[in-house]
């Protein structure tokens, strides 16, 4: 497609700025301007993935199932403790403290952490650590230290999740029903959000995303992206294999337990020009697989937010510019706001080149770095990025 056609249509993006307070590594991170496509760089440990987590949490309105997933992917989720009546035990086991900056034990009104547009608290997600006690058939929030002292043996820890004045959910952590996925429906998403991990999408997610676009025009977007690596890709599909029972240990839902669950193998396959039989996508290499995940996630994030961790993973530098051009094109056309992290200089160069000729307003690079013990963001617009790549200035 010609560059001129790709001019931004001026549709508004879900987030025009971002402020994250008291969340994990971020004490108070402010990103004054967000673009449609944002490339996040920075040294190890400055919170690139944490920034993606914050956005994921915000887009999902703090859904407890997402909190669990976030803790789970960082190996921080211990089985939630059964209520023992001893606060010390509860605190020690409670993984939710890792959500907050400083990682101190959960106390009364811990936090709140907040995530949202800069200077707009009423549109920001707010999560605080609380204690609850049973009153009648409901849970009541402990108001102050006196009450906590009095009710000491009857309280359970939990999170209070709110946004603006008309959304608030209290999640005491011994309530059984919130440990299943059912609680998810209580949180209407702020924006549709799809997350691509550094090692791609898992099989279930791939199949689910594929099923939602199969036989639509969006299929062509996915095909086009695979052809960046190999022109011979003709068609792609996902097979449905035999059903089998799989034994799995379930940690995400609280107490460890073993279950046998039916599972169906679904494998992406590709028809290549010149080959009579389809081949598995996996056999075409990591890059192809990652690209499949990215493009599938991209078309599924229509009118929402797409998060990609380590976008360049497995993708040769020679095709990265084409990849970015495709990402920009789809982002503008499908109205998706994108946040991607990278370590690679090739990736930054390819990103910068893809932005030239009409898309300068649609992309920017965000560098996270530590300054006086705090993590801060520095923004690089199209001009600054072009200077950095031309003059070989290290900006990662």
């Amino acid at each position: 497609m010609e560059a001129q056609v790709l001019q931004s249509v001026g549709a508004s993006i879900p987030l025009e700025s971002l402020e994250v307070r008291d969340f994990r590594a971020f004490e108070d991170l402010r990103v004054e301007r967000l673009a449609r496509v944002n490339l996040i760089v920075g040294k190890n440990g400055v919170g690139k993935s944490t920034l993606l987590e914050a956005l994921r949490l915000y887009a999902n309105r703090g859904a407890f199932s997402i909190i669990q997933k976030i803790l789970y992917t960082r190996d921080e989720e211990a089985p939630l403790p059964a209520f023992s009546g001893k606060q010390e035990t509860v605190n020690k086991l409670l993984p939710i403290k890792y959500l907050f900056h400083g990682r101190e034990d959960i106390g009364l009104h811990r936090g709140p952490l907040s995530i949202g547009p800069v200077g707009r608290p009423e549109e920001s997600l707010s999560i605080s650590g609380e204690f609850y006690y049973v009153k009648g058939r409901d849970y009541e929030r402990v108001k102050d230290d006196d009450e906590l002292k009095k009710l000491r043996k009857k309280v359970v820890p939990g999170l209070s999740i709110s946004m603006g004045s008309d959304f608030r959910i209290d999640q005491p952590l011994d309530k059984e029903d919130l440990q299943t996925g059912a609680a998810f429906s209580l949180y209407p998403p702020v924006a549709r959000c799809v997350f691509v991990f550094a090692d791609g999408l898992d099989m279930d997610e791939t199949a689910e995303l594929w099923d939602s676009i199969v036989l639509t025009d969006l299929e062509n977007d996915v095909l086009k992206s695979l052809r960046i690596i190999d022109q011979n890709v003709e068609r792609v599909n996902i097979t449905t294999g035999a059903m089998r029972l799989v034994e799995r240990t379930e940690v995400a839902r609280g107490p460890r337990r073993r279950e046998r669950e039916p599972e169906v193998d679904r494998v992406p396959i590709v028809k290549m020009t010149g080959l009579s039989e389809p081949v598995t996508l996996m056999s075409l290499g990591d890059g192809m697989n990652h690209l499949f995940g990215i493009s599938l996630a991209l078309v599924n994030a229509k009118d929402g937010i797409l998060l990609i961790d380590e976008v360049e993973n497995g993708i040769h530098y020679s095709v990265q510019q084409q990849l970015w051009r495709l990402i920009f094109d789809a982002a503008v056309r499908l109205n998706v706001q994108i946040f991607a992290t990278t370590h690679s200089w090739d990736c930054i160069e390819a990103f910068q080149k893809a932005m030239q000729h009409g898309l300068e307003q649609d992309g920017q690079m965000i560098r996270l770095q530590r300054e006086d013990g705090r993590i801060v963001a520095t923004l690089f617009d199209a001009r600054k990025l072009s200077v950095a790549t031309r003059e070989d200035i290290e900006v990662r």
Partner: protein
Amino acid sequence: MADGNVLLVEGKDDQFVLKHLTRNHGIPEDSFKIKPKDGISVLLDTLDVELLASDVQRLGIVVDADLDIASRSVLA
């Protein structure tokens, strides 16, 4: 440490002069990197981004002062 010290100069000639000047004064060659620019205007236009380099500790600039000084300022 030396990696973080950068001296920006207007061009290759200045780079050459400064290299010899520092050598004659016994300053170790790896004390700082001398980075030539493609003229004064490029130097001034790219200065803000040079300051954002993630590895820069100290940034020095050498420019000719035998011409109109006012026109050689970032503020000009």
